[in-house]
């Protein structure tokens, strides 16, 4: 037979097309809207990474019901039966999602203590950093104040020497030139109310021991009185006289003797009680 004959070929083509169309109809899977709705719910639950543990079991139930629904539909079983499986599948898929939400909030609650502690730790660190900052600022301020006083560091502590021109020979009253140094000292003691002072008086070697001892005590007392006149509490100040002992200059020269006629103010560390002072050499 000549298959290239136009009529025969056309007929064969038509027959093939009809067969195709019929077979397409036959193999198109039947559709059920409830089942599709359930499939969407199951797919959504499947893609939720939080669905684990107990909610995973619900997802498995949902998947099984969906598969059963598909099978019933394919086998041409009653639509009520398909719908029933779809209902079960959708409800369990929803349960799986809710179970995941539940697990998430439970974890969040369980982690509350850790989160609280983290907040408190951060607060403590901030507080410490701030305290450190304050301490640093204070220490810088103190350094500036001490520099301003021209205090020098000694074995006893920080010493401000009110020297040179403070007293005339044999006199205990302060010369007017000492005013500026005493003002600075007063300002310092007002700014640092926890710091007490020890005032030590010294003389040159002109005159007897008793005379110089008494003179040195009077000189220390003069400085104390000047400070208390400016409002510094008396109980923050201890005075001592050392007479002509502990010279710092050469008593054989006039300038050396002037250096020895002096008062030294020892600034005590914060909180050191005035009465706890050690005897100075």
């Amino acid at each position, binding site marked *: 037979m000549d298959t290239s004959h136009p009529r025969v070929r056309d007929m064969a083509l038509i027959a093939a097309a009809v067969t195709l169309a019929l077979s397409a109809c036959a193999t198109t899977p039947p559709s059920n809207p409830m089942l599709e709705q359930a499939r969407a719910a199951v797919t959504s639950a499947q893609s939720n990474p939080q669905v684990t543990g107990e*909610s995973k079991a*619900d997802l498995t139930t949902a998947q099984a019901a969906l598969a059963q629904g598909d099978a019933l539909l394919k086998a041409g079983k009653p639509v*009520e*039966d398909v719908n*029933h499986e779809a*209902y*079960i599948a959708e*409800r*369990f898929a*929803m*349960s799986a999602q*809710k*179970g995941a*939400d*539940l697990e998430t*909030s*439970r974890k*969040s*609650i369980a982690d*509350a203590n850790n*989160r*609280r502690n983290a*907040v*408190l730790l*951060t*607060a403590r660190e*901030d*507080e410490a950093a*701030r305290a450190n900052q304050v301490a640093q600022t204070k220490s810088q301020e103190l350094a500036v104040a001490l520099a301003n006083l021209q205090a020098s560091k000694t074995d006893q502590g920080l010493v401000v020497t009110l020297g040179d021109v403070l007293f005339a020979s044999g006199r205990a009253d302060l010369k007017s030139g000492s005013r500026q140094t005493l003002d600075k000292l007063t300002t310092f003691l007002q700014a640092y109310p926890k710091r007490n002072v020890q005032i030590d008086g010294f003389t040159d070697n002109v005159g007897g021991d008793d005379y110089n001892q008494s003179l040195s005590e009077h000189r220390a007392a003069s400085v104390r009185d000047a400070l208390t006149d400016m409002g510094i509490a008396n109980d923050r100040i201890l005075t001592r006289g050392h007479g002509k002992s502990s010279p710092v200059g050469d008593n054989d020269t006039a300038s050396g003797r002037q250096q020895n006629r002096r008062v030294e103010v020892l600034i005590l560390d914060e909180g050191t009680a005035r009465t706890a002072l050690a005897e100075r050499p």
Partner: protein
Amino acid sequence: MKCMQAAGAALIGSAVLLSGCASAPLAPSTEMTKARSAIDQADRAGAREYATDALNSSQQKMRQGQEAAAKGEKVQSEQLFEESYADAHLAQISAQSARSAKDAADVDKGIATLQNEASRSTTP
């Protein structure tokens, strides 16, 4: 004669089958017990307040299932009890989830307050 006998047997057989299908009330099934206990659990979990729709649906399916069982409709009643169970299970988890979310929100609020107080006390 033989033909008559066969016809008679068939008749009796179909009568038995028919009466089986008809309205002999069914005894409480395991499906029903399971659904009922799930409804109780959902109720205890607070579903009345937090998952009203699912709980109502579950109770409705329970009633329908019992009606079907009373009529002896085994397959239909079992399906309804299964659906009642699925609803009750969803209601229970939904209620638990809603309550837990509420608690978690309270906890978050508390921590936020703590955070505010802490940052206020450390701000110079």
